[in-house]
Structures are given as structure tokens and as C-alpha cells.
């Protein structure tokens, strides 16, 4: 039974995050703070070459250094651990420490365990490697050429995946179109770059054959069976402990290489071993680089601005390995047609391997790219047809009465009110005033621009997206459960246990609010804790904006089970019938007779220590557990003409942005930023706003600053924060965030996930604003980051084109 909005005591309340005091007081333990007795420290020697064969490695001097306990080459490590687990069906094999050849600059070649990290690094200085450098491929177009150096010789090609998906009558719709908008667009390689890099402490017990693992992986419960084959230890003999995570953004899903390295060294030394990435390790080899794509994108449009069909062809630079296959491309098929009634889609995907650190998933997971590509086409259509950018979007929105709405790929959008979100954004932005200000500024030779994006933010992933692109998948996984346990102790205290770790968001706040709602208690009285995998219930962990939805569902279910027992005990104590009871303010009472009540403490004590006074069929103890499965997912059709429902909990946002561009320096200054998000029922406005602002900051970073760069020789040119430019406080404007609430019909309380939305919508909005500022020069922006140097160059080129025309 779900409470209705008006009855809710705690859901939707703007409470302070309960995680913050511990984080601010420094009382939580991050992996780098963690120590166990006898622990050694690891350091890793990384390849100076992007592509090279390892002829020989001499580690004798390193081994002889006092304080060094073990030195492992890739070959030696392969005797104690297997390859890194991969979800791809293609035979692309990766080792935590490279064997025989390296495929990107920064790939691990030797690992050392020593009494201190400094000694371990001293030892790395003493390793001698005989290299045979090979030509590197760093550009997808060259990598696709016949005769290009092969990243994986066994594949016979660098094009590891190549397929065109067609949904609906694309050719027919394009034939009917009055206009075809065409753009070649480039999305830059970015990386998650959390403040805290990846780390693990692995403790192998040779007597028991067990390994205990403390790490900042997000995917504890998936990790044990996934990592078992690599560590060569059965899953039930691995115990993963949850740690507080200092940011993930998708980059800490498995950490297989970090756990593999620490695990191998622990097996060899018999000591616990910590391997903590430093910034160089993380930026060169964290396996969390985002997509790097070239798109040929086409939108079929009628004279009155109706979008009929979308045709995309992408070449995507996946880097040197392929652990999540083409997830970055399948993900965006959940919302490929955006908030618009586009009736057919073709999307061609060429995944190409190069000598770079591999692409996996990073906040948005490819749907960020899809939004930018689509919104670029929509802006271009508005420009080409002479229709206002707001108006053309209105004409194509799916209307509120059309939900649930099935898009051509087969995914279903649960609910939405897109015109409502846009209206709210316009009301807060004051578009007319900004247009006047823009006209006035242009008289003074200043360039103001107004940007708009209206885009989707899918949430609550289903694991079918990892394999449905493949007719013969390596796995056919289709569960993504999440569980909690709620216990009421003998004195009435309520504890909620989660089985996924804290990954930087607000899971404790969310869980406490929902439990408080269900038990009629104060969320500040709820204790929230985490448990290790040895004690865990099924849990898939954070990813794909799912945890708020999944935890809310799990708590809702667990509370119902708990309440059943509470009511049974209370009924026994009050000598009343269960149907006559209600739970209010932590008291169970007979409806209409407030004086006849028992507290949770009374019930708890009875449940734990007075078995003879319980109803005879009840066991001692008072807890409710629940495993919440994905609220709505279906399998893909055999022919893949319909991918099934895999990301139906669909949020939406409208961003309106005003910028001023200094055309002499290329500087971009934000004047106003309004973001309206609809992610269903809001559990906590404050934590959601934080998520949205943080996401927008990352989106601004992508639009203006961030890019992983490789030299032609494959050297990583952005391996420190001097060169990989994250937005800082002075680069991010004050952002006004507003919520519209269109509940999901499929989830507990109607919540949707909001974790990635800010980053998924900011890039097209910012691009649109800068393009609008530069409209007097006729500049069409087709790439990011939009650096000051590019702006200056585009303006100069436009000016010289103009003067060429007038002469």
C-alpha cells in the first residue's frame, strides 16, 4: 500500500543529508585510510609505450631492494590470477598486468609489494624492460584502414563491432520528409576523474583459502561472482566489505584490475596488500573513459517542423579493451528519440579498438551523447526551417496523455509532462527579457547567447542493455535486484541495512526517509548501515540512476513484511484483531482508541526476549527483508527489431542558459542558468538538487574544458589535473534548479532516478547558448569541448569568409 501525497510525513521533505556530518568530520573510513595488521603497499610500473611487445623484464634489482616483498610481471601474475572478467562476447582478453604486449600508454607491466608505498616506487625505478615498440593507432579512421596495426591480432581487425539497427520504416519516412537535416558531430573523450581514485586491500588466507577484500568498488555483490574467476577463489570464499566512496560517476563499478593486482600480490606474499591508484594511475588506466564518437546524423523533418525519423551512424573509439562491449551505444537506445514523437530510427554502430585506455561507462553512459546529438539536430532544424527553437520542440513533444509511450526501439517511457517542464523553465528564465538584453548587447559589440535543451534522463537500468546488441551474447543477464533489511531491536531502535555501498550520493538519507514514512517514526532515529557480501541479500549496486528507485522499492517491501509481524505481536499484546490496528508515531494502537497502544520498544522487547508471550507461530526477532526486482523490464525480441523494455523509468529536463562570449579571447561567461527536472516524486529536494547541480557542473566541464588527449604516438597528454581540466568552483555558475513531479506508475511512491540528468542535459544547452551567441558569424558548433581557442579561430574564419564575400 503506497501512501498518497497528502498523507506523506517524510517523503519529499527537504531534510539535510544525514551522510554529511560523518563526511565533514572525517569519521568515515575511505579505502586509503584503511589499514590491517601486516599490510603491504603496492605500486605499479606502467608502460611508457602505447603499443609494444615485452621482450624481457629484469626484476632482480627490484627484488633485492630492502623492504620489497614481491615483484610480479604479467606472466608471473597470470600464474595466480586469471584474466580480467569481461561482459563482451568477442575474444578481447585483458590482464590486470599486461602479458606479452601492452596496448596503451600507462598499462600495468610490473607490480611490487613492499613495506611502504615509497619503497615500492623505489623498486619500480630498478626494473629493466626490453621493449619492442610497435606502431600505435590512436585515430579511429586510421585504425579502420586495412593494414592498420592491430590492437588485438586474434581479431584480425580493429573494428570489433559493426551493425546497423533499424526500427520502423526509416527509408520510407526519409522519403516522405520535406527536409533532411544533416550534421557531422564529434563527441570528445572525457573521463570520470573522481577525487578519490580506485583502491583495494586484499587479504588472502592460505589456510582457509579465503580472501577478504576492502575496496571502493560500487558493485559489491556482482563483484564476488564476477571476480571469482580472476582471483581463482570460489565466490563464497570471497568477502567484499563496503567502504565509503569518494565519487564514482560510473568509474568504480568493478575495479577488477586494482583488485586483481592487490589480490595477486596478497596470494604471493601471504600478507594483506593495499593497492591505491594515484592520480597518474587513475587518469592513465582507470578504464572509465567515456565515448569518443564521430556521428553522421540525419533528421527527417516536414515543412511544418514535425520530426519523422532519425538516422545515425557512429564510429566510436573504444580504446584497447572491451569489457562492457558496446554498452555506451546500447544505453542511448533507451531514449534515442528524446522527448519527441519520432516514429522510426536507424542507428549504425562501428566500435573500433585503438591504443588508448578503454571506454567503459561514465555518468550518462552514452545517453549523454544521444541527447547532445539529437538536440544539435533539433537546433539545426529550427535554424534551417526558420522556426523558433522553443516552438519546434513544442510541436514534437510526446503529450502527457500519450504515456506509457513506446519508442521505436521497444523501450517504454513510463510518464511525463514535457510541455509542463518547458513552461516552468521559461517562467523562471524570462526568455523575452534575455532576448532584449541580447539585442541591446549586440549594439555594443557584445555577444550574448541563449541556449535551450529539452532532453530525457532515463533511470533504473536493466541488465539486458549489456547484451541485447548481440544475437549470441556472452551472458543473457536480466536481473538487477536491490535488497534491504529493516530490524527493530529489543528497545525499539530501527536499523536499516543496505548491501550496496555508499558511492557518494545520499542512500542513507533516502532510506531513512522512506523507513520513517512507513513506520511513522522520525528519520533521525533510524540507524543506517551496510553489510559485506558474506551476509548480503541480492543487490546489483549503483549504476544507471537506479538506487533511489530501487532502495525505495526495497524499503517499501521490507517495511510491509516487518509491519506484518509488528501487527501480529501488537494484536496479541492488545488482545485486538490486526485489522483494527494502526501504526502512528512509532505506536501501534487500536483505531479510535488511542489509549490502547503499544510502542515499538514494547513490541521489540517482546519479540526478542519473551518467546513464551508471543503468538506461538512466531519466531523470535523482529525484522523485515525484501529484494526488489526491476519494476518493469522485458526481454528483447529474438530478431532484435524490438529491444524490449529496459529503461522505462524516464525523467525529463529543460535547461535554459544565457552566456556571454568574449570573441577576442574566446572566454565564455555564464549569465544565468535555469534547470527544471522531472524525476517523478521527489524524495528529498535538497539531495536531488545537489545531484543535478553536480551533474550540470560535469556537463559544463565536458562542454568547455574536459578532454582526454592522446598524442599521435599514443602518449596520454592529460595524465594530471594540470592538463585534464575539471571545472572548478569559479567555472560553474549559480544554477537555479526547480522540480516538476510527474510520478512513475511503476515504482514505489512514483520516484524516478535523477543521478545523471544534470550531465545529460547541460552539454546541449551550453552548446546551444554559445552557438546562439555566435549566430551573427553563422557558426555551427559540431564538437566539444568548445575551447576559447576554437571560438577565436571560428570567429576569425567567419570574419575572413565574410570579407572574402564582400570583396
Amino acid at each position, binding site marked *: 500500500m503506497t501512501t498518497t501525497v497528502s498523507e506523506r510525513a517524510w517523503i519529499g521533505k527537504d531534510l539535510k543529508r544525514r551522510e554529511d556530518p560523518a563526511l565533514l568530520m572525517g569519521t568515515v573510513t575511505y579505502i586509503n585510510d584503511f589499514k590491517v595488521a601486516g599490510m603491504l603497499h603496492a605500486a605499479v610500473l606502467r608502460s611508457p609505450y602505447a603499443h609494444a611487445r615485452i621482450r624481457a623484464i629484469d626484476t632482480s634489482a627490484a627484488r633485492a631492494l630492502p623492504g620489497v616483498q614481491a615483484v610480479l610481471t604479467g606472466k608471473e601474475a597470470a600464474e595466480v590470477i586469471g584474466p580480467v572478467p569481461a561482459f563482451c562476447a568477442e575474444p578481447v582478453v585483458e590482464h590486470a598486468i599486461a602479458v606479452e604486449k601492452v596496448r596503451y600508454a600507462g598499462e600495468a607491466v610490473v607490480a611490487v609489494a613492499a613495506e611502504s608505498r*615509497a619503497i615500492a616506487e623505489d623498486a619500480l625505478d630498478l626494473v629493466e624492460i626490453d621493449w619492442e615498440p610497435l606502431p600505435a593507432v590512436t585515430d579511429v579512421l586510421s585504425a579502420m584502414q586495412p593494414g592498420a596495426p592491430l590492437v588485438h591480432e586474434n581479431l584480425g581487425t580493429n573494428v570489433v563491432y559493426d551493425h546497423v539497427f533499424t526500427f520502423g520504416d526509416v527509408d520510407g519516412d526519409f522519403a516522405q520528409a520535406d527536409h533532411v537535416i544533416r550534421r557531422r558531430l564529434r563527441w570528445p573523450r572525457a573521463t570520470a576523474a573522481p577525487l578519490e581514485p580506485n583502491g583495494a586491500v586484499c587479504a588472502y588466507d592460505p589456510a582457509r583459502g579465503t580472501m577478504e577484500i576492502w575496496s571502493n568498488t560500487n558493485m559489491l555483490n556482482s563483484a564476488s561472482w564476477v571476480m571469482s574467476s580472476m582471483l581463482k577463489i570460489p565466490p563464497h570464499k570471497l568477502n567484499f566489505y563496503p567502504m565509503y566512496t569518494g565519487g564514482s560517476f560510473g568509474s568504480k563499478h568493478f575495479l577488477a584490475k586494482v583488485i586483481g593486482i592487490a589480490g595477486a600480490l596478497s596470494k604471493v606474499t601471504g600478507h594483506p596488500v593495499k593497492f591505491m591508484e594515484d592520480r*597518474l594511475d587513475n587518469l592513465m588506466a582507470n578504464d572509465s573513459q567515456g565515448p569518443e564518437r564521430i556521428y553522421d546524423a540525419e533528421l527527417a523533418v516536414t515543412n511544418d517542423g514535425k520530426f519523422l525519423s532519425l538516422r545515425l551512424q557512429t564510429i566510436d573509439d573504444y580504446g584497447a579493451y572491451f569489457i562492457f562491449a558496446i554498452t555506451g551505444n546500447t544505453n542511448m537506445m533507451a531514449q534515442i528519440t528524446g522527448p519527441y514523437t519520432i516514429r522510426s530510427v536507424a542507428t549504425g554502430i562501428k566500435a573500433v579498438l585503438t591504443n588508448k585506455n578503454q571506454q567503459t561507462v561514465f555518468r550518462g553512459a552514452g545517453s549523454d551523447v544521444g541527447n547532445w546529438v539529437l538536440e544539435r539536430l533539433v537546433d539545426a532544424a529550427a535554424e534551417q526551417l526558420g522556426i523558433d527553437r522553443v516552438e519546434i520542440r513544442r510541436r514534437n513533444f510526446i503529450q502527457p496523455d500519450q504515456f506509457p509511450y513506446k519508442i521505436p526501439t521497444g523501450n517504454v517511457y513510463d510518464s511525463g509532462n514535457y510541455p509542463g517542464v518547458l513552461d516552468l523553465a521559461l517562467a523562471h528564465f524570462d526568455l523575452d527579457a534575455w532576448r532584449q538584453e541580447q539585442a541591446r548587447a549586440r549594439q555594443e559589440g557584445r555577444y550574448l547567447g541563449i541556449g535551450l535543451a529539452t532532453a530525457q534522463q532515463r533511470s533504473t537500468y536493466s541488465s539486458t542493455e549489456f547484451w541485447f546488441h548481440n544475437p549470441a551474447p556472452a551472458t543473457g543477464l536480466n536481473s538487477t535486484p536491490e535488497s534491504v533489511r529493516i530490524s527493530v531491536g529489543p528497545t525499539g531502535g530501527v536499523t536499516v541495512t543496505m548491501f550496496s555501498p555508499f558511492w557518494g550520493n545520499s542512500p542513507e538519507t533516502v532510506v531513512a526517509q522512506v523507513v520513517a514514512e512507513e513506520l511513522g517514526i522520525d528519520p533521525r532515529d533510524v540507524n543506517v548501515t551496510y553489510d559485506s557480501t558474506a551476509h548480503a541479500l541480492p543487490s546489483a549496486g549503483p549504476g544507471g540512476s537506479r538506487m533511489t528507485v530501487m532502495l525505495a522499492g526495497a524499503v517499501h517491501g521490507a517495511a510491509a513484511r516487518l509491519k506484518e509481524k509488528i501487527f501480529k505481536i501488537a494484536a496479541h499484546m492488545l488482545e485486538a484483531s490486526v485489522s483494527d490496528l494502526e501504526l502512528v508515531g512509532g505506536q501501534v494502537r487500536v483505531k479510535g482508541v488511542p489509549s490502547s497502544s503499544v510502542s515499538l520498544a514494547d513490541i521489540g522487547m517482546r519479540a526478542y526476549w519473551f518467546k513464551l508471550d508471543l503468538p506461538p507461530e512466531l519466531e523470535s526477532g523482529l525484522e523485515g527483508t525484501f529484494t526488489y526486482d526491476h519494476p518493469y523490464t522485458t526481454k528483447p525480441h529474438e530478431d532484435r527489431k524490438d529491444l524490449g523494455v529496459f529503461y522505462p523509468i524516464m525523467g525529463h529536463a529543460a535547461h535554459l542558459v544565457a552566456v556571454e562570449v568574449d570573441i*577576442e*579571447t574566446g*572566454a565564455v561567461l555564464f549569465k544565468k542558468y535555469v534547470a527544471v527536472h522531472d524525476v517523478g516524486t521527489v524524495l528529498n529536494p535538497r539531495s536531488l538538487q545537489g545531484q543535478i547541480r553536480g551533474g550540470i557542473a560535469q556537463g559544463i566541464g565536458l562542454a568547455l574544458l574536459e578532454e582526454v588527449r592522446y598524442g599521435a604516438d599514443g602518449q596520454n597528454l592529460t595524465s594530471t589535473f594540470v592538463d585534464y581540466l575539471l*571545472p*572548478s568552483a569559479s567555472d560553474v555558475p549559480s544554477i537555479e534548479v526547480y522540480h516538476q513531479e510527474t510520478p512513475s506508475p511503476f515504482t514505489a511512491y512514483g520516484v524516478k532516478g535523477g543521478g545523471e540528468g544534470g550531465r545529460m542535459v547541460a552539454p546541449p544547452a551550453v552548446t546551444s547558448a554559445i552557438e546562439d551567441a555566435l549566430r551573427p558569424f553563422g557558426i555551427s558548433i559540431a564538437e566539444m569541448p568548445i575551447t*576559447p581557442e576554437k571560438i*577565436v579561430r571560428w570567429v576569425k574564419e567567419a570574419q575572413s569568409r565574410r570579407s572574402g564575400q564582400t570583396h
Partner: protein
Amino acid sequence: MKPARFRYFAPHTITEATQLLDEQGDEARLLAGGQSLLPLLNLRLARPSALIDLNEIQALAFIHPRDGGLVLGALTRDATLERDPLVAARQPLLVEAAHYVGHPAIRHRSTLGGSLAHADPAAELPAVMLALDAAFTLQSSTGSRTIAAAAFFKGPFQTALQHGEVLTEIHLPGLPPRSGSAFLEFARREGDYALAGVAAVISLAEDGTIAQARLALCSVGPAPLRAAAAETVLQGRHPDEAAWQAAAEAVVSELKEPPSDIHGSADYRRHLAGVLTRRALALAAQRAERSHS
């Protein structure tokens, strides 16, 4: 990211420091604020045999008035420069430029002398020293000498400091009346290394023309540079847009080979140097006029 082994000393006097420099030999390095040196150590790009930490030498941290100008101890923190009323009154250019050095946390450690001795071509303060005609006192165990800023900066991370010498004092002559200054730079983000930076000082004559213009740039060459040709162009002219434009063109043509990297090509830096020169000169002249009114 841990440094290779080194010996560590923390002397309390300049004499002890120079003795240690002599004893520890060529591979010893002086440590001031550490904001450039420590990352180099951690990346093992620098592997000194010994670090001689100057932070305990109280006698190196001072700001004194002298002859209408200033004398500053080499250990003066950038955060102090930003806030000191005497510096603000006599050399506001230093206050303005110090604000561009990194971020507040960095400026609370980083020092004026450290920045000058490190001589990063992208650093702001060396260019400011050129524009202000600064002179430096260099002390060794055998005595001390004074050298003009113009003779001090030799190239990227190269100075006239000999082994055994410590930069101890920075002398800044006072500005003539009717002077104004400005520092402008452009970086990808606030606190980043500048892609180009300009320090400008304009001194006006009685008749309102430019009596003297001093202009120095950072991050557009192997060392901070004084734009002599542009200064000549400005001499005696009326302070107006045309003058700034002429000076900017002189600066741009004076730049030989600005550095080029992923944050900005040589062409773009040259372009920025012109734009910033124009803007900095206009601002400095405006301030010079205001100082008179």
C-alpha cells in the same frame, strides 16, 4: 607518487642555509613554499639529494618601505602580497598579479622568492618584476650581490642564481606620480597557468601624454619578457585606443616563438598577447588618470 629519498635540513638563519648549500653540493635544492617543487618531487621529475627548507628563516619574511618603493623578503607569501596595505599603496600591480597565482590554498604557501627562483615562464610574478624594474639580492657564504630582474631570468626555469646563492631580497623602486598599473591574464580556468599574461605600467606626463610605458609578458616565450619595442611606440603618445592598438601590434610582432601545448597554440597565445596588451594598457592608463584626479 612518492618522492625518491632525500636528506632534509631546516636551517634557522640565512648563514646556516648558505653553509648547507655549500656542504650539500650541486644536487641540493632550496625549498620555499613548495608549490612547484613538491609536485616535481612526487612525480620524481626532480630528485635532489638534499632539501634545504627555508621556511624556518624568519628573517626572510618581511615587507619594508624604502625610498618610496619597497623591499620584500623572499619568503613573503603570495597571500600576504594580496593583503598587505603597504604593497597595495605602493605597488598595486603586485597585489593584482599575486591574485592570479594558483588558488587561495596555494597562495598561503607559495612565496615571492620561490616563484622568482623557480622561473617558470608561465609565472606571473617574474613578469611583474620586469615591469617594475626590480632588483634582487643574492646571498652566498662568501657575500652578496644585487642583480636587476632583467638580467636574472635566463630561460625556462633558468636564472642567474649560482649554486651556493640564496635569493634573499626583492627591491622595487617607487612609481613616478601619475602612474597606473594593470595585470591581466587569460587562462583556461581561474588559477591555471596563464596562456598569456601582461603587466603594464603607464606613467603620464604633465600634458597628459605617456611619459613612460612599461610592459612585460609571461607565458609567451621561454622566459618572461619586457616588450621594449611596444614601450618605444607608446612614448610621448596620447593614451588612446590607437596607441594601445599600435603597442599590441608591436608586442605581437616582437614575439618570436610562444610555447604551444594542448591548452593553447603559439598562434593563439600570440593573439591573446595582443588583446591583453591593449586591454591592460587601457586599464593602466585609466588608473594613472584616476590617480591624478
